[in-house]
């Protein structure tokens, strides 16, 4: 319904970046990254704050000229053909940037007019889009008093007014409460099902796992790894993780003892010990057999968080 039906054959690769670099003065925000995005994919940049994700998104959004490398979007050059590319992009910025004093419908009208769409077309699409983001009843309301989740959904509706070829979402659920996040995820998942090509940045591993077919893990301006969430976990982590928590005064001693168990890898965090193993329950038995009794233990599947920890030695939220 919302995906644009192309009447001209398009190249399958929508975004191609080679050694893409962005510098601000002496600071290198994006340090020679290469990736490709194909039509219909949901592609993610996962990394902590300051990893260079937003800078990359701004370059793809043609509002930030690359400092080096090659970037082609929809077969065009972002610097010389920015307006033509942007005509076919949808952008959901982290800050929403809605016209808060205007009504919900006026927001879509103004934005649609930026794209040169006729009023009749905008009105028609507005009905469908507001229905899609569950804001039909709020059409005539001013935006300012709406909740954060509603505003984000409106921003998503607004970004779809031109039926974009690619939808760019920068941290789509940052700052939302858990319930609102799930509603946004549900809508984005539906878009994905409809074949809309998504690029998103996130520092939430659960968001990346739920929404991305393929993702790159970014750290300090570079790509640390690339693959589907499953592949990344299989490659960089074990099937299960045993989390152990000890009393603070035992923590250090326990870490030394646990190091003697048969695990693929161990991470000692400030408050927990993570054991990367194929069988978490078996590992826990082994820990107990060494005479240790953790205050709490948890066996769970590996996540992208573990992949990130393995690749960078830091946790995602540490930045």
């Amino acid at each position, binding site marked *: 319904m919302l995906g644009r039906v192309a009447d001209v054959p398009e190249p399958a690769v929508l975004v191609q970046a080679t050694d893409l670099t962005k510098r601000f003065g002496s600071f290198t925000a994006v340090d020679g990254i290469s990736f490709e995005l194909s039509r219909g994919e949901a592609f993610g940049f996962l990394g902590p704050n300051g990893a260079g994700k937003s800078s990359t998104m701004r370059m793809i959004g043609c509002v930030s000229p690359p400092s080096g490398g090659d970037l082609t979007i929809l077969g065009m050059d972002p610097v010389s053909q920015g307006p*033509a590319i942007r005509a076919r992009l949808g952008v959901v910025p982290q800050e929403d*940037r809605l016209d808060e004093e205007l009504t919900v419908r006026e927001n879509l009208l103004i934005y649609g*007019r*930026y794209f*040169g769409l006729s*009023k009749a077309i905008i009105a028609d699409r507005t009905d469908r889009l507001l229905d899609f983001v569950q804001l039909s009843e709020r059409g005539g309301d001013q935006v300012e008093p709406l909740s954060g989740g509603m505003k984000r959904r409106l921003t998503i509706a607004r970004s779809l007014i031109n039926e974009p070829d690619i939808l760019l979402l920068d941290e789509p659920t940052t700052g939302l409460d858990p319930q609102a996040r799930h509603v946004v995820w549900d809508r984005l998942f539906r878009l994905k099902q409809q074949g809309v090509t998504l690029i998103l940045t996130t520092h939430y591993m659960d968001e990346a796992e739920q929404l991305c077919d393929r993702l790159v893990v970014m750290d300090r301006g570079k790509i640390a790894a690339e693959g589907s969430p499953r592949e990344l976990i299989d490659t960089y982590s074990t099937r299960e993780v045993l989390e152990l928590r000890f009393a603070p005064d035992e923590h250090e001693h326990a870490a030394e003892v646990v190091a003697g168990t048969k695990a693929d890898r161990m991470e000692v965090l400030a408050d927990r010990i993570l054991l990367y193993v194929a069988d978490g329950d078996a590992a826990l038995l082994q820990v107990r057999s060494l005479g240790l009794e953790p205050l709490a233990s948890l066996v769970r599947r590996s996540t992208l968080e573990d992949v990130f920890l393995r690749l960078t030695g830091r946790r995602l939220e540490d930045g």
Partner: protein
Amino acid sequence: MTAVAEAGARASVAGPWGMSLRAFRWWLVNYRRTWRGSIYSSLLNPVLFLGALGLGLGSLVDKHGTARLGGLSYLAFLAPGLMAASAMQTAVGESLYPVFSAVKWQQTYQAAAATPLRPADIYRGHLMFTTMRLIMNMVIFLAIMAAFGVVRSPWMIAGVPVAVLTGVAFAAPLDAFAVTREKNDQAFNVIFRFGMIPLFLFSGTFFPVTQLPAWIRPVAYATPLWHGVALCRELNSGAPDLLGAIGNLGYLAALAAISMLAGQITYRRRLYV
């Protein structure tokens, strides 16, 4: 849904004029909410100034002889110059804070920059709206002048576009400057105190520049407001001196044109980081 060939169904890129018009629409849609209040102040401002200064202060001035005002009553002297000065005020009001708000507080500029619009289109769209506001206010000002009985020549109708151009000559550089402000709006106070207020007071609006000490007069002649004030005042007395008028208009047009080039650069630098 099939691919529709219907006009306006596909996002499109237009020429500079068409794209600027799209940016202009944002201001129009927002203005629909606030136009009433703005009309009141557009009416009230000239009435207060012409009443208090033109009539009130003017009655004192007129008692002391008006030879230096060219034999005019003070009200008749003041009104056309004040029209140009009020164009400057309108331009300042539609430029500094609205630009800062659009780029910093609301980020409407950045929202527009994510669409086919280019920074230059966003800049020109804002200037188009300021021009519209100037036209409205100057027409109102002329009507109030007529109500006060001080429109002395049909040439004064040409004072409207002259005052509008004066306003644009202020708005274009002020927009270009305001968009460069990253952190705060402190610089605006400096502009008000050391730019706009001295210009307002000393550019010949309230008394002829010839009353100033000789050494400082060239400064007054160099300010854009003086050119607007002088030409508006001349138009109210009949056909202007052609060469002088070309000089005034040329100065204002050149200032506007050069500022617009600068604004395209400053807008791009701010919006394409």
